[in-house]
């Protein structure tokens, strides 16, 4: 059932180079869009495809594009979000490394649809080597007339630039990204105004994830309707899933949305089962910030139907018994994993990455980290567990940007599903674990 749309051609040697990519049908979607379609027709095709944002929130892409301020006479910008820093997520890196031209093709078509003349790819600084790969690919596209003036001999012109960040998870949040792109600290902005009205330099701006944009080319080639026929319900098309943790075959997989979770974890075509023939304990299915689910609830919903890899199915049961598809960062934990330790670890991450603007996030993540550290190191009290829950509730919904929620959900869901394990840590104290964890120093 593996379905190669986005990753189509990835096995071809040299597909990273323009000439190889072109000789396998590359850039024909650009020619089709720019020569045979109006910008409005391109946008309509994307709306028809049902494509939803692949950066985490799953917001319909066509709808997002339609919000762009049409009355403004300022220039418009398209920003490709390549910050990819959510733990468990490494699919955009994979796509850009192997198929940079698929992204560039998507950027051209999306820019045409949106009336954009300048695009920036904001990429996390740790992906330094990818800056070179992307710049080279853009240079090639320039030489062959697909970037720059009069693309594919049409009146449409576009420049694409790569812009590196410098190590800050928060810059993946779209308004923090815009601040960072303007050369400032990555402090998220208060919304509204939304980027569609006041984005980069106060101009109308669309921010889309790498994978979202890369899907636009294939949609134009096959038609929105054909794309919408793939997948299940409102989860149309395919999605890149980066699978990691205690599985036999970690890696990036393109799946048709609607694939049963069980097949994804145990199928030979995908994760290949749990490493070392241990048993499955829990999964964080959409990047570290989505709720963790125990084995029974990841394989089947609370109502007993098989759980599917789709936006709707993974969310079924909401926060009581469900989770989210998120970015597609699929983290698998086996029977040996300690939930308290893992939760402490991820909370440390969010505390470290909080920009510090709002006190519930800045202080709350720090308190949660301290309490979790205490619990994990055998110095916790029973009342700490309730305290943690209270703090997480007080962060949720009370911050400028969703990083607060992203920090709260893992804690709340870990306690919800694994309270006994937290209690055992209090009861059994120091003997629970032999090793002592490390603090990060950056």
């Amino acid at each position, binding site marked *: 059932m593996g379905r190669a749309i986005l990753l189509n051609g990835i096995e071809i040697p040299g597909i990273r180079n323009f000439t190889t990519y072109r000789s396998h049908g590359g850039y024909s979607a650009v020619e089709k869009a720019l020569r045979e379609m109006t910008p409005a027709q391109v946008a309509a095709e994307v709306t028809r495809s049902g494509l939803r944002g692949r950066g985490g929130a799953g917001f319909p892409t066509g709808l997002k594009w339609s919000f762009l301020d049409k009355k403004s006479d300022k220039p418009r910008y398209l920003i490709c979000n390549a910050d990819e820093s959510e733990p468990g997520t490494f699919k955009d890196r994979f796509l850009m490394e192997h198929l940079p031209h698929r992204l560039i093709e998507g950027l051209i078509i999306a820019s045409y649809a949106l009336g954009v003349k300048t695009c920036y790819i904001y990429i996390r600084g740790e992906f330094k080597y990818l800056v070179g790969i992307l710049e080279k690919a853009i240079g090639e596209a320039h030489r062959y007339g697909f970037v720059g003036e009069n693309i594919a001999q049409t009146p449409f012109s576009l420049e694409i630039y790569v812009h590196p960040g410098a190590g800050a998870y928060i810059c993946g949040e779209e308004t923090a990204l815009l601040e960072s792109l303007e050369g400032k600290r990555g402090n998220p902005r208060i919304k509204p105004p939304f980027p569609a009205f006041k984005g980069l330099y106060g101009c109308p701006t669309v921010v889309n994830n790498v994978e979202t944009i890369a899907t636009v080319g294939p949609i134009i080639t096959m038609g929105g309707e054909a794309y919408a026929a793939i997948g299940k319900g409102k989860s149309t098309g395919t999605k890149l899933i980066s699978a990691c943790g205690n599985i036999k075959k970690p890696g990036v997989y393109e799946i048709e949305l609607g694939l049963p979770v069980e097949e994804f974890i145990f199928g030979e075509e995908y994760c290949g089962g749990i490493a070392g023939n241990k048993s499955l304990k829990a999964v964080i299915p959409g990047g570290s910030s989505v709720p963790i689910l125990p084995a029974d609830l990841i394989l089947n919903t609370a109502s007993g139907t098989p759980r599917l890899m789709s936006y709707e199915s993974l969310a079924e049961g909401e926060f009581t018994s469900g989770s989210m598809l998120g970015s597609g960062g699929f983290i698998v934990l086996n029977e040996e994993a300690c939930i308290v330790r893992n939760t402490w670890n991820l909370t440390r991450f969010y505390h*470290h990455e909080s920009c510090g603007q709002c006190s519930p996030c800045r202080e709350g993540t720090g308190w949660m980290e301290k309490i979790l550290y205490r619990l994990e190191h055998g110095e916790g009290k029973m009342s700490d567990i309730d305290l943690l829950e209270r703090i997480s509730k007080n962060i949720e919904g009370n911050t400028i940007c969703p990083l607060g929620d992203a920090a709260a959900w893992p804690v709340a869901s870990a306690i919800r599903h694994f309270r006994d394990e937290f209690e055992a840590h209090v009861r059994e104290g120091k003997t629970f674990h032999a090793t002592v*964890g*490390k603090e990060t120093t950056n």
Partner: protein
Amino acid sequence: MTNISGRVIHKQFEKEGKTVAFSPETLEKVHTLIRRYPEGYQRSALLPVLHIAQETFGGYLTVDVMDYIAELLGLLPIEVYEVATFYSMYYLEKPGKYVIEVCQTGPCAISGGETILQFLEDSLKIKAGETTPDGLFTLKAVECLGSCGTAPVMQVNSRFYEKLTTEKIILLLEALREEAKIEQNTSDRWEEQFS
């Protein structure tokens, strides 16, 4: 010496009687980068230019380097300082020739990332956050590097090393010690990434 947000930073170059300036070639590159942003928004070039500056001037950002960049981009010095202190890839103190950054986040932690860090601490006889006395290695514990499928992972001067084992680390440290004795290959410098 200046104190920003509790950290002491140095006017190293002036102290040594050197002036801070890019070579004409690097300056040309910097101007190309500035031209990527609209007229009046040259501040946008700050992050990429700081990467280049850090690599050019010894691997860290001193006050005189930051002041130079401020002047170059027409910014107030504080506008550069506040950015340099926000992002974890900029260093305000001289790091070792090789900066080893070991991922400690969830997926790496459950795949042996903590053991790798411990092994490096023992081998280099320093703690995470420190630099070896010979100035060769700085060891850092960092958060997710976006390579969780090949955990445990680390970067050395922004180059990825994946599926780490202690055997690989022994080989790598040896190789880096050898490499440090000879002239460096510079093809993966920031300057070279932008075309």
